[in-house]
């Protein structure tokens, strides 16, 4: 299954790993912030609407 990366395996795998970590980080950060503010807003709205 795994393609033969030859002597550059480290470089290719490293690049993929680093990029995917960064992509996941920005996605996770965005989702986490979205959840948190949504919860905070819902909280305020609930208080306002009784």
């Amino acid at each position: 299954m795994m393609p033969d990366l030859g002597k550059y395996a480290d470089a290719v795998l490293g690049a993929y790993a680093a990029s995917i970590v960064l992509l996941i980080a920005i996605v996770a950060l965005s989702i986490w912030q979205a959840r948190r503010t949504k919860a905070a807003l819902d909280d305020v709205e609930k208080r306002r609407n009784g």
Partner: protein
Amino acid sequence: MSLWEYANPVKFMALSGRILPWAAWLSGICLVVGLIWGFFFTPDDFRQGSTVKIIYLHVPSALMAINIWMMMLVTSLVWIIRRHHVSALAAKAAAPIGVAMTLIALITGAIWGQPMWGTWWAWDPRLTSFLILFLFYLGYIALWAAIEDNDTAADLTSILCLVGSVFAVLSRYAVNFWNQGLHQGASLSLDKEKNVADVFYFPLLVCIAGFVLLFIALVLLRTRTEIRARRASALLARERMA
């Protein structure tokens, strides 16, 4: 029905809520397909060997890094001229994504440079101007973070974005004059116009589409977050006054 109506937060929330899942799913599909296709099912380049596979990350992220700044420039202008809050918030929301893209381009480039040029980093014009772009992103985000009043922050960051763009172009020319550079130099067998074979080209296109869609999904999500945060703080203030 003009386009500007979507600058109203309510309309924007409704529309973006509908687009967001589509963009998210499509970007996920494109990224998975493109990256798997590129990583597992493309041949090695005859000179670069397997490192050519880095192109599927490097080129899309580099493209996005530049284009996100362009998008911020446009939304900043819209804020300055028409004062639509969603526009300013979209610029704010886009910046961290731009930072992530710039970092990916820089890191993959550096990792690629080690086998190709024998060095992690060289002061090549393109690399250098990328580093400067990175600094502009950082300054932009730091300025947003440092100012409490939202509209003031929007005004100042917009003007910074404008002035920064001019200086980014100036730097690009200056850097070119300063050093001829390695990027796309003789060591490269890949040259988009002539040499990129279809085997590399099609998966690359899919990856680029994936990155674009990912950006759209993220910027919508983050803009929604910013709008909610503004609403929450407005409501809190009203509560306090009551």
